[in-house]
């Protein structure tokens, strides 16, 4: 009597009484090969399975107790058998998709492997389901097993936990200063050969483009309005133009990323857990602050005495409580591990916010953010300078990311000058720190060659712009030909840099068409691959299979 006949007989017998017996039988028949459908001999075919599902649904009371033994013999994770009334099964699934569903069900983290092994079937590409917010819900309403599995993952509650890799995995599996290159021994959970859906390839660092452009708008506003650069007679139209371009860019990026958050929430979550990427979650809010600071005089907005400032700063404060708390309170994300120049993005928001708040005429709130920023900037600066051996993300060589060192002090000097009303000694001290760091990076400029362009480079242009704006402000206080020419020079450098990066972006977007390459950083596996098995997919499969088999053995023992 093979498994199929057992199932067929299920329709005739009383399920309440016979189920336990049946499951034991199934377990004994199938368990030794259930995970390898290639054998074929003992495969259960789905049309035969669905009657059992129906009977299982009637068995709410029994399933709680026996769900574990079911999970062994059945193609599902343990929770997959918590069958629900509301998961309707309208029609049996097509025969040819059975084996893949069957297989994926028997694994704790099934979706990626299904994607790796299977070709897309019947027009629906299921390989990216693991990153979708509702995998298959929209375009495959009738895929009932899919729904069942999803439902069970939601019920069990820990399906998501298992999907997110722990932080040390990011360090183990990725390399490079931005932790975005897969190590050769690792395998991605998504197919590496061909481009993924656009939304999956759209990283959060794309917001840095808005930052770069927004800071340019600020710079040209300062150039056109500052008394030290009056002699240039720059039209405020440049500012307006840049500002409108930034606004457009911001809207586009925000809409796109919102779509990503809606459709591929798992990808966004993985970006948030990425030790470098998480800092870029500050960049949209900073870009909005830039838009407010660089607001052209031609655009009239009533700020109601700065009341608009508080809602702008609220998300930054919440993120800071989260991120700084992680640094301090230890665990895997302590600062001595994750410190990286891009952490400056998490700091600089304080100063930008203080600058905007002080420009709107507020006092206490800006000082609050200035203080918070200063304290954490001191910590970060010292930590980065120390280059602790435990710091796994610090790039070995210089990299454009190091320009972020310039950002925080230059914006801090601007913010303090705005708070106290004059570019006083404290502002100058901070400004000169920024200037020195800038100089010490510029003299090493030939170390900066030979890196692959990425969207994150935009984030590295805004520090130079910040330094240029601070210099313009300084020249307004100390007005002499030297400071004026310095501000002119730095402004030219930053604008040239932005133009270069813009050019590179355009070339990559239009000509090379690789502006958004596959974002490997979000596709690492949760568990390290077994040694020796390098080929993608295989490693994951082996580990998961072993675990399942162990489980099945123990449960078989318990069942008898």
């Amino acid at each position, binding site marked *: 009597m093979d498994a199929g006949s057992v199932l067929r007989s299920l329709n005739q017998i009383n399920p309440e009484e016979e189920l336990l017996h049946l499951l034991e039988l199934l377990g004994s028949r199938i368990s030794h090969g259930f995970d390898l459908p290639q054998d074929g001999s003992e495969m259960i075919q789905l049309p035969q399975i669905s009657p059992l599902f129906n009977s299982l649904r009637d068995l709410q009371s029994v399933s709680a107790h026996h769900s574990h033994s079911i999970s062994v013999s059945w193609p599902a994770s343990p929770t997959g058998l918590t069958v629900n009334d509301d998961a309707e099964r309208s029609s049996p699934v097509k025969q040819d998709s059975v084996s893949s569903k069957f297989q994926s069900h028997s694994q704790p983290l099934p979706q990626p492997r299904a994607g790796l092994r299977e070709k897309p079937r019947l027009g629906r590409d299921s390989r990216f389901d693991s990153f979708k917010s509702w995998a298959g819900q929209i375009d495959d309403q009738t895929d009932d097993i899919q729904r069942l599995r999803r439902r069970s993952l939601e019920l069990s509650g820990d399906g998501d936990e298992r999907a997110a890799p722990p932080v040390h995995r990011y360090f183990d599996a990725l390399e490079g200063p931005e932790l975005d290159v897969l190590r050769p021994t690792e395998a991605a959970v998504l197919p590496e050969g061909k481009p993924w859906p656009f939304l999956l390839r759209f990283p959060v660092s794309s917001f840095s483009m808005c930052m770069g452009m927004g800071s340019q708008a600020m710079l040209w506003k300062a150039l056109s309005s500052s008394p030290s650069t009056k002699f240039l007679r720059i039209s405020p139209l440049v500012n307006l133009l840049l500002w409108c371009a930034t606004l457009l860019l911001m809207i586009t990026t925000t809409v796109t990323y919102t779509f990503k958050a809606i459709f591929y929430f798992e990808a966004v979550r993985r970006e948030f857990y990425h030790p470098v990427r998480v800092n870029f979650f500050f960049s949209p809010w900073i870009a909005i602050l830039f838009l407010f600071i660089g607001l052209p005089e031609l655009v009239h907005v009533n700020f109601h005495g700065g009341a608009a400032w508080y809602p702008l700063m609220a998300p930054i404060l919440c993120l800071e409580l989260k991120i700084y708390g992680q640094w301090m309170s230890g665990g895997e994300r302590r600062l*001595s591990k994750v410190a990286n120049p891009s952490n400056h993005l998490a700091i600089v928001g304080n100063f930008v916010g203080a600058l905007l708040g002080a420009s709107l005429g507020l006092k206490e709130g800006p000082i609050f953010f200035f203080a918070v920023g200063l304290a954490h900037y001191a910590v970060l600066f010292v930590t980065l300078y120390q280059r602790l051996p435990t710091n796994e993300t610090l790039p070995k060589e210089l990299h454009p990311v190091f320009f972020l060192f310039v950002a925080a002090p230059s914006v801090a000097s601007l913010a303090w000058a705005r708070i106290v009303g004059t570019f006083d000694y404290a502002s100058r001290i901070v400004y000169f720190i920024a200037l020195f760091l800038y100089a010490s990076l510029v003299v090493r400029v030939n170390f900066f060659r030979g890196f692959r362009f990425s969207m994150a480079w935009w984030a590295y242009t805004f520090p130079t712009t910040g330094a240029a704006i601070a210099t313009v402000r300084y020249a307004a206080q100390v007005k002499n030909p030297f400071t004026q020419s310095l501000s002119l020079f730095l402004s030219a450098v930053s604008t040239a840099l932005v133009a270069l990066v813009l050019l590179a972006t355009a070339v990559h977007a239009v000509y090379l068409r690789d502006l958004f390459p596959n974002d490997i950083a979000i596709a690492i596996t949760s568990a390290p691959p077994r040694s020796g098995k390098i080929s993608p997919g295989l490693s994951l499969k082996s580990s998961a299979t072993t675990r399942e088999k162990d489980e099945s053995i123990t449960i078989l023992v318990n069942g008898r």
Partner: protein
Amino acid sequence: MASSPDGPRFVDIHPLPADDGPAPKPRSRAAARQVSLQPIRPPRPTAADFSMFRTKSSLSKPPTPSSLPLRAEPAPSPPPQAVVVPAGRYFAALRGPELDHLRAHEDILLPKDSTWPFLLRFPVNTFGVCLGLGSQAILWGSLSSSPATAFLHVSPIVNFSIWVLALASLATISAVYALKCAFFFEAVRREYFHPVRVNFFFAPWIVCMFLTIGAPGAVSTAPHPVLWCAFMGPVLFLELKIYGQWLSGGKRRLCKVANPSSHLSVVGNFVGAILAVRVGWAEPAKFLWAVGFAHYLVVFVTLYQRLPTSEALPKELHPVYSMFIAAPSAASIAWANIYGSFDEVSRTCYFIALFLYISLVVRINFFRGFRFSVAWWSYTFPMTTASLATIKYAEAVQSPVTKAMALALSLLSSAMVFLLFVSTLLHAFFWRTLFPNDLAIAITQNKVVSGRKKGAIDSKNWPSQPQDQPSPVPLASAKI
């Protein structure tokens, strides 16, 4: 090694208290109380057990006839404990955020299953009680006198009574600790070498300054500079010692010993600066502020980094983290006192403290599940200092928001102190577990050779430990 003859000696002695002492495993609370109510020490063996912690004068005395039979065989010629226990041993043998739990594989010099003499169980952390009460006295003093909180109409009597209470507790604790110094000097020395405990040696002097600052108007009007010299002198001396240890490396360099309690050794500067302004000496105040700020910066950065080398840092959050708030808020008050107005620098320091406060409060649920200890008192004074700074701030920026903040923070800190007060009383008189055996001072100087009588020691170690704390105690007190 000199300590090797010790091992057998104590193994020989251990059975004695177990034989005629109390039942070894009292399970219920009543039984635990019975244990501590009993006359704790069987006279003879105790005298031999704890002699190593006695002051040298009593050691050098010719052995009394009563202790002769015991001391006959081992012949303890030079007291081996006179050698300093190296800092690494404290990290190797102890664990916990306050380094006061013995690791499972370690042995101690004193018997684990009997209660030690009271003085040996009296840690220097107890001065934290005075810290908490003294800062509360200041808080209520400024609540009753500050224009920002005038609408509350707080009576100065509250300040006075808390101040008297703090003074009384300081007098009592100082007297007891002085007795400990007199009789068990070795224990005090070992506390001084303990990487966490050493910071609490600043506490008595800080308390004295608190009491001087918070003295009610009825007691004194303006303190005399002599008081400042008397209280600040020991702090400066200790600082030279401790900061020197941090700087000059060795086993006690900062990246090894950094711990939130290290803030205690920094905050003394700011309190001293406030007192210096009160006595009218502005320049020493600036000096102290500068010293304090420089070292605060270093401690802050080091703690934030959580270097893998700093072994004393607790893995999770712990009440000790509230120490982060103390130094910046004290610094802001000190700066405002020195320069006469709550200016931008003061506000910067104050807001740093406020942010740290918030970032700890939002993680409040990480703070549960720790055993109460008397050291918790020291963790209330940062909150009180933050409330004081908020009152100062509300004076500078008069608005309903700042007043509400001042009120809320003051209430929070007072409630916390009250809770601790209640739980201290409960621990002291009801459960009688306020002063458990102070394992931190009794670690061996060398590592116990693994395998040697391991089973015997471990079975003796831990069964006796949990009985010190009946199960409802930690849960009830941890809810705070």
